[in-house]
């Protein structure tokens, strides 16, 4: 499985309000949009929009129970997101290492030129 964060996944979890919704779903297991709306500082419409984005990113799935729609977290997909985050950190580590090598090589050359006979 690729650990590269897809744009969809990325923007789905980059938003703090959506992470809040995701957080509530993880804690509660399963919840409806109105249950969630009662526990966040934004509107029911905003909750619905966040649920759509999370569902498109496949971080959550839904099922119908009677007249209610219940949402729950997709644990595997969330694991993937966690790994994507770690991968991003590793990418920056690699870039910084290369920057270090490049800058130190340039600096060593300059020192040789100015310090040499």
């Amino acid at each position: 499985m690729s650990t590269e964060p897809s744009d969809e996944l990325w923007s789905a979890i980059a938003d703090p309000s959506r992470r809040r919704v995701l957080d509530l779903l993880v804690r509660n297991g399963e919840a409806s949009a109105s249950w969630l709306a009662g526990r966040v500082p934004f509107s029911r419409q905003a909750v619905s929009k966040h649920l759509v984005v999370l569902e498109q990113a496949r971080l959550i799935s839904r099922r119908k129970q009677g007249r209610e729609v219940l949402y729950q977290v997709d644990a595997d997909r969330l694991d993937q997101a966690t790994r994507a985050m770690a991968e991003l950190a590793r990418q920056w580590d690699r870039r910084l290492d290369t920057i270090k090598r490049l800058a130190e090589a340039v600096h060593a050359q300059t020192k040789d030129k100015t310090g040499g006979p």
Partner: protein
Amino acid sequence: MAEFQIEREVVIDAPVEVVWRTITEPEQIRQWFADRVELELEPGGRGLMSFEDRAVPFVVEAVEPPIRFAFRWNHPAGEEPAAGNSTLVEFTLVGEGERTRLRVAERGLDLVAWPNAEKDRYAEEHRGGWATFMDRLARLLAERRRG
């Protein structure tokens, strides 16, 4: 206040001026970031990082030689990057004699349009940043799977 955030740093045996050129000159950026780089090195300047399979636009946010360089990217196609729709990559350089401490932070969206008390509580809760948040979610999930 910044939300998900990755912060990394490295100490380099070279003065800040040298490190500054490494992170801001397109021919040098090519060696540590992308296959091709176009860059207007001024606030508001446009840039393009080309990788094997895609070209990623960015907009320069800050140029303060030789201590700070920042740009925004990861914004939706067709939109101007701003605090609400992109991530900010920020390099900070601190001279320590002949050496340089180079720090990079990539951070996501700010908590806009939330009541202040709620913002503070949420910021407090997530002070550890995005990675901590994800760790905690992963732990909760593991507990639920066991339980």
